[in-house]
């Protein structure tokens, strides 16, 4: 039944995370934007000890499922998107394990995130210097060593979010995409779980970025980095590994890509959170300066300012609803890759525009570092790029609506 009514549970969670956003994140926003590679200790400790528990009294009762996950992501990114990405969680690496891992792998890699005495991180390493959106062009190799029953990884990964924590702190892990056979193209790409501090995995650098500076974006080098065969996501009888390495990993490339159907709505929700931070602030500030936004004014008698703000509100809500729809399809167990890409494409673009417009409409203070609006503008832009650029998501949508394969529409 079509309904826009959140469950009591998710309303409580929303209020809880909104308070966390305002009380635990915002006060540190500017500091960790400026001190780019510092660990935001207060936030990390708070999240590990308190934040993970979720909303008080949250156990039991009906939830909004994946929509609720989106609502939480929106609230926390309404707080600070950079700090959100620095949270000690399994993050995208966890999504990959959940989507493509065996039960044994889920237990082995995800349990520490419940039981570790100290904060730990997960991450996913896909991008390389010459393989971004075209992840099938990955050059990192995985070679199976029968003698030791291990995979040997070689290559360099860039733009690995949370890559510092995930590669350095005992208990965490990095999911690495590598090819077992370049002649197989996409079919040869598998994902491997590399536990933190595995010899051969080296953290060689952290990016300096336009925004989300509190987030550690790492370059990781793999030099004869060995992981047990049981760390190939999806697993496969060892017998076939030597003769048919391309068939290893139950879900392979498609399984890995399925991670994105689940993660894109969350990323879209994160985007909406950043956009809302700027928009809410803009509306409050305009009101403080004597401009109230009316929803019942004559359309052609509105001021340019009022018209802009109304459009920003509508666009943000449009992005939010596309996001919730993609997530609610997961609740119903329906395939959602079209809807997830629609949400991601719309949200990334909308919040990029909204935050840029907010800087404009606030005048000089909007451009000033005295306020956080300029930071939100910088933070917002990444949403139009990572987890599939605007253009990649347009391509996915286009293929679906035209019923074209990836070879028919390149």
């Amino acid at each position, binding site marked *: 039944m079509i309904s826009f009514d959140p469950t009591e549970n998710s309303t409580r969670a929303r209020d809880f995370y909104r308070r966390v956003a305002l009380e635990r994140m915002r006060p540190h926003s500017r500091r960790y934007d400026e001190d780019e590679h510092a660990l935001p200790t207060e936030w990390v400790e708070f999240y590990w000890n308190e934040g993970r528990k979720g909303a008080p009294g949250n156990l039991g009762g009906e939830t909004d499922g994946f929509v609720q996950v989106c609502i939480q992501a929106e609230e926390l990114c309404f707080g600070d998107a950079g700090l959100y990405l620095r949270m000690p969680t399994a993050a995208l690496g966890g999504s990959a394990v959940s989507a493509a891992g065996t039960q044994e792998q889920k237990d082995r890699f995800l349990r520490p995130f419940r039981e570790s005495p100290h904060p730990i991180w997960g991450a996913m390493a896909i991008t390389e210097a010459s393989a971004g959106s075209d992840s099938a062009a990955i050059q990192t190799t995985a070679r199976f060593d029968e003698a030791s029953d291990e995979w040997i990884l070689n290559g360099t990964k860039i733009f690995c979010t949370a890559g510092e924590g995930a590669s350095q702190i005992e208990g965490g892990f990095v999911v690495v995409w590598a090819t077992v056979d370049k002649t197989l193209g996409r079919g040869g790409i598998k994902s491997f779980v590399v536990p933190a501090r595995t010899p051969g995995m080296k953290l060689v650098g952290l990016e300096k970025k336009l925004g989300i500076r509190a987030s550690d974006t790492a370059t990781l080098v793999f030099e004869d980095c060995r992981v047990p065969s049981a760390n190939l996501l999806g697993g496969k009888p060892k017998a076939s590994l030597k003769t048919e390495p391309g068939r290893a990993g139950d879900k392979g490339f498609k399984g890995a890509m399925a991670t994105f159907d689940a993660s894109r709505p969350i990323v879209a929700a994160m985007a909406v959170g950043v956009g809302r931070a700027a928009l809410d602030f803009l509306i409050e500030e305009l009101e403080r300066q004597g401009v109230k936004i009316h929803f019942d004014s*004559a359309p052609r008698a509105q001021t340019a300012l009022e018209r802009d703000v109304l459009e920003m509100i509508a666009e943000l809500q449009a992005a939010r*609803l596309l996001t919730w729809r993609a997530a609610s399809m997961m609740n119903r167990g329906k395939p959602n890759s079209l809807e997830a890409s629609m949400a991601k494409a719309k949200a990334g673009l909308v919040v990029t525009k909204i935050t840029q417009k907010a800087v404009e409409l606030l005048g000089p203070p909007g451009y000033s570092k005295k306020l956080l609006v300029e930071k939100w503008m910088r933070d917002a832009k990444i949403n139009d790029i990572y987890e599939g650029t605007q253009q990649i998501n347009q391509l996915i*949508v286009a293929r679906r609506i035209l019923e074209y394969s990836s070879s028919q529409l390149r």
Partner: protein
Amino acid sequence: MIDFEPTEEQALIRDTVGEFAKSEIRPRARESDEAGKIPADVLLRAHELGLIANGLPEAFGGGGERSALTGALIAEELAFGDLSLALAILAPGLLAYAVADFGTEAQKQRLLPALIASPSALGTIALQEPRFDSDPYRPRTEARRTENGWQLDGAKCLVPWPDSVAHVLVLASEGQSLAGFLVPRDAAGLRATPESYLGIRALATAELTLEGVRVPADARLGGPTGGHLRALVARGRVGLAALAVGVARAAFELARDYAKERHAFGAPIATKQAIAFKLADMAIEIDAARLLVWEAAWRLDQGADATREATLAIQQVRRVALEVSDGAVQVFGGHGYIREYLPEMLLRNARGFACFEALTLV
């Protein structure tokens, strides 16, 4: 719980109306536009579906199943067929819904049975005004108290005006509040002039001038003190916005299908990213706009104030319908500009949402 799946019953209604739109409305769209006339047989068959009656009170012969959300699903499907025909098909609801929502018991008894039974619209609604700043909440048309009723002065335009109309609900400012008055078609001082617009050509509309039009006390919708019609505007916007989604979807689907058939440089133009991405953007914008419309409709069904949601929805859909229909003309190229194909008509129709402010269609 937040969810986006229509109920089984809603899906059935949507599919039935969608099938009707495809097989009965769309094939008549072009001829109606060219002739400037609504084909009467289509109206009769639509009446048999009972789309309007279903949402009106049982006590007066309706089905008692009023839902703005279901209404929005219906409106989108009908407009997917054709906007002029959709408006004509839904026109019997214009006055009927307003009376059902805001009328006194006596007004309902007097008007609703006939409005519900008739296949053609016996009533209509006059809201838009021929000014750049036409304001649905604060019309320039004024209602002043007289000794035994009201006097109305002002001008209205874009009033759906089929021959069958006997009453028009005129929205007017009564001091600071928005009120509606039932005016007989032949009232002294009321003059109706037929209009001709860029789009929705098949639909008969009129410009009304009201000069010292006097109506009795019981002509005020909702009685002497009731009937504050602000809520009518939100409902009226939701119906229009749903129609606009239907127009946009019609344009998108035509463009998508054409792009897959039309070859250039040895391949369908849909295989070029310049076209494919344009189509992707259209699809995204249409879905987003539809969800905004649903949210506003859902709020109405909760009995909540939907001013904000309805305003956001109509404003967004107004833009999307225009952009998508313009995009469809562009995808068709020269063929989009000639009247042998539908995109040029959809573009003309879509621009109409710039003028329509609120019509009680759901």
